[in-house]
């Protein structure tokens, strides 16, 4: 699957309170959360982001709370993929579990600026910056994660497993 979208770039340690402030955690659907996505670090983001756009960030993206509302808000806002130097572990799990594509690729992050157009091949982890012509290779997923992604997330994966009696 190939994704093409405009990049939005942020720095290191973008925490889950920045992705979706806790004052909105009295709601839990993508549609309700999306208008407040990134509100406290970039108040105009939710208004300006377009479906298919790609979020690019530095180290430890999604650090802080376990709130699955964070990847849900990003997905709801139309973000098609997050590329970061590194991810905080709970955010990583949550994104994979709900089917928000994420890739670790420090080189691509460093060479990308807000407004660049990126093309991402999720199957191979290849990232192309169409503005600079550069190509990058993201850290490959372990086989188990690929199975999870192929199933469409943890719930469909578990349904299949339960159906098999495993």
């Amino acid at each position, binding site marked *: 699957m190939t994704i093409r979208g405009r990049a939005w770039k942020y720095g290191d*340690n973008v925490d889950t*309170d920045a992705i979706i*402030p806790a004052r909105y*955690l009295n709601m*839990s659907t993508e549609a309700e959360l999306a208008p407040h996505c990134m509100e406290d670090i970039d108040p105009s983001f939710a208004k300006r982001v377009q479906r298919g756009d790609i979020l690019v960030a530095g180290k430890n993206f999604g650090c802080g709370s376990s*709130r699955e509302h964070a990847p849900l808000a990003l997905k709801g806002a139309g973000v098609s993929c997050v590329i970061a130097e*590194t991810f905080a572990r*709970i955010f990583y799990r949550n994104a994979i579990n709900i089917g928000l594509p994420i890739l670790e690729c420090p080189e691509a992050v460093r060479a990308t600026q807000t407004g660049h157009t990126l093309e991402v091949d999720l199957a191979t982890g290849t990232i192309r910056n169409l503005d600079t012509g550069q190509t990058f290779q993201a850290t490959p997923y372990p086989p188990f994660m690929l199975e999870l992604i192929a199933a469409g997330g943890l*719930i469909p994966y578990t349904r299949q497993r339960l159906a098999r009696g495993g």
Partner: protein
Amino acid sequence: MSTPATMAQKILAAHAERESVQPGELIDVRADLVLANDITAPIAITEFEKLGVDRVFDPARIALVPDHFAPNKDIKSAEQCRALREFARRYGIVHYYEVGRMGIEHALLPEQGLVLPGDVVVGADSHTCTYGAVGAFATGMGSTDIAVAMATGRIWMRVPETIRFIYRGALRPWVRGKDLILYTIGLIGVEGARYQVMEFTGPAIAALSMDSRFTMANMAIEAGAKAGLFGVDEKTLAYVAERATRPYTVYASDPEAPYAQTIEIDVSAIEPQVAFPHLPSNAKPISQVGNIPIDQAVIGSCTNGRWEDLVEAATILKGRKVHPNVRCIIIPGTQALYLRAVKEGLAEAFVEAGAVFSTPTCGPCLGGHMGVLAAGERCVSTTNRNFVGRMGHVESEVYLASPAIAAASAVLGRIAGPDEL
């Protein structure tokens, strides 16, 4: 003769029905307890219902605690708490804690004896790592993970490496677990232990109270850790002996265990710490804080809402008055602590000093209710995060510190230690 292993490896191997596990392996793990709260459970329940199962794996091994926006702070929160309550009734969840009997989940569950040495505990709350204080491998996950764990009692995990911290020396006056963990996070940074286990060891740790150990394990996540583990000693065993209602297993790291790193810390050099906005790693010793006036002081949360914390605050506030410019909000972790504070005169000391003494709730820690900050306001707080907007307005500031610092600051109207009183 088996290969030397860390405590984390041994606990995970036992729960994956394996002889041994190696860091980096992806394994399927059995959970002894599965946890969710009023914020994370609603999504978990929605996802659980997609699984097509008609029961939870074990109604006695799931804990549901409405603590974040409870007692209900608004209509939407009331709906979320109701979803939790109805799920608990429908599936016969034994450990559902209603308002009036509940507490902040990570203060409550250990107090109730629900988390024990050698357990694997998974919770839809990042501070689930708190239970490492009793020698349990406990880690936070998202709602979908918890939905699957509630249905099957199992969940996938990546076996983490372990960083060993050895703390030596004698603690200075007023230095507690909070100061040690803030200092440690300041040393390694907010991703210094990402995907790893922080194992807290050494003579200074042996001397530490259980309450201080809970505080340290609680904040392992603020260094990116998957878990924060303490070895089980006489103090742990005494703590669990009066609470446990099921058997448990004690695991210990082998002396030759394959640690990713060992970091030695001389605690005698550590002053009380204050973490400046907007990262828990921005820790400074109290002597270098300077003049920072405050509007609010919060003493409580899953980090510092335990008995030792309340006693420390009361020792400082008794016979003194909260500064006229400061709102001081004190929140015990559980109903049992609340009652004890009333019986032993702490509640009186707080109210006489001009502080709020609240029912248990996570409330202000995440800007929910009971002390949300306005633009430009500054709070010294015993909580765990000082991110932008964490406690309210995006232009408010949170300084993290121990209960002693927070109480002294409440009296003085600026961030300061008890020595200045």
